[in-house]
């Protein structure tokens, strides 16, 4: 019985969320942002992109968000083109490095924005914004303006704005880069467990080895000059995760291994 359920679950989930088929990016000024990339992202995966500065992490994320188009190669979302994205079960949300909130709108209106833009009825949108705010623990701040919040709170608003659309694919570009370690650890823990509960697929850019290990099911190590995938690292640790994992010896071992990989990637990134 259990086996059968698992069987059906895996058949459904076998449809990859994103397939990157030899997609490469050469910028208008001739810079080779990314060499041809081959990557398949499966449902429920938490993938971190890590690598030296300029190796094309943001570029890869923008390709996945269709913010830029590949120069050559192909991108597939749920086995189709980008027009499939945005329908039920195929929602995409992007969290930028900065919160990018509208300073003239209160927190709740900021969170409601994607629903308003999609033309959702006011009452329903309000309800869902409330729920999303509650999820990031900011119910109290709903009627405040962004400038009245701390950096960490603003980032949480930005995450609530992403969650409010009930995304199936969440893309985040160094969302916690500017935060102190304590806040970052807390937000990391919330995020990874939320993604697990909702079976969200996440692609996450980070510079932190610890963060990558703690969050990910799979880590893509990238190298620069030209931007490319250098190695993959699987984090074989069950969800949900908490501080116990962070303090375990396994965690330390994995960090060491990833650190070694990253050093190799840096060496491989030196200009020829």
């Amino acid at each position, binding site marked *: 019985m259990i086996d059968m359920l698992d069987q059906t679950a895996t058949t459904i989930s076998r449809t990859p969320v994103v397939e990157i088929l030899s997609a490469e990016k050469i910028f208008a000024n001739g810079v080779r942002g990314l060499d041809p990339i081959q990557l398949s992202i499966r449902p429920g995966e938490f993938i971190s992109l890590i690598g030296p500065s300029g190796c094309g992490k943001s570029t890869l994320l923008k390709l996945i968000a269709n913010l830029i188009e590949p120069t050559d190669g192909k991108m597939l979302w749920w086995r189709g083109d980008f027009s499939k994205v945005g329908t039920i079960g195929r929602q995409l949300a992007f969290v930028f490095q900065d919160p*990018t909130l509208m300073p003239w709108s209160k927190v709740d209106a900021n969170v409601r*924005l994607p629903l308003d*833009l999609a033309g959702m009825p006011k009452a329903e949108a309000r309800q869902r914004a409330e729920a999303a705010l509650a999820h990031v623990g900011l119910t109290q701040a709903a009627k405040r303006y962004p400038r009245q919040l701390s950096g960490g709170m603003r980032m949480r608003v930005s995450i609530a704005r992403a969650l409010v659309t009930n995304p199936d694919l969440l893309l985040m570009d160094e969302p916690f880069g500017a935060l102190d370690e304590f806040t970052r650890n807390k937000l990391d823990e919330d995020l990874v467990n939320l993604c697990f509960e909702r079976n969200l697929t996440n692609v996450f850019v980070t510079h932190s080895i610890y963060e990558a290990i703690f969050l990910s099911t799979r880590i893509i190590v990238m190298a620069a000059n030209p931007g490319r995938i250098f190695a993959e690292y699987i984090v074989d640790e069950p969800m949900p995760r908490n501080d116990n994992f962070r303090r375990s010896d396994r965690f330390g071992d994995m960090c060491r291994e990833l650190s070694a990989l990253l050093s190799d990637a840096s060496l491989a990134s030196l200009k020829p």
Partner: protein
Amino acid sequence: MTPLAQRPWFGKVMAPLAVGVIIVITWQWACTAFEVPRYLFPKPTDIADSLATNWRPLFGSLWSTLYVTFLAFGLSVTIGTAIAFMFVQSKLIELSLLPYAVLLQVTPIAAVAPLIIILVKDTTTALTLCATVIAIFPIISNTTIGLRSVDPGLAAYFRMNKAGRWATLWRLRIPGALPFFLAGLRISSGLSLVGAVVAEFIAGTGGTSAGLAYQIMQASFQLDIPQMFAALFLITLTGVLLFAAMVKLQQILLGHWHESAMEAER
């Protein structure tokens, strides 16, 4: 309890008012003590006296000046905003029209006003035209800059969410442009008054004006210095009130989010 001098209303209202009272009292005292004749430099009481006795013609003129000022201000805001919206719609429109907007701006109004007054028969129309010509530029340039200076991150977010042109304009560009627009409004309101008065002076030399500038000229012909001061006082008062109204408007619309209109936080 906070000391008196640190309360907000004290700093903003009482302190400047106190300075004003001291100046008026010193002025009054000096004129009396040194027996300055009222036809050379009138005492504050002489001016008040003149205001009281000549209130009918003075306030009639004030009305006439105000009418031109507000008309010019209103025209500047509507036409200026419309032009700014056109500019951001297309670079070509901006490139072809901007030199002429600059031309209007750099030509001294005093040099063009006589021409306008001769060409346009109706005085009020001519005066309004002159005032509009100088009051419109800050609106055009500020609103254009405002509509252009969209936060690129937010713009990308709107694009990613497939926001339409209208939604982007209404939810992103206009709110983002508001601080710039309001700063333009503040300058433009003052320039409307300046333009109206300058145009009245020029039209007044032809004897066809009824505004406060005309009162000043008439008073100067008759060497009625207190009346000159009374008219001047009314012009200044109008300017100050206009400015205060714009500051208030800025506070109402921006006070909760934009630095330019926020009370200092400590």
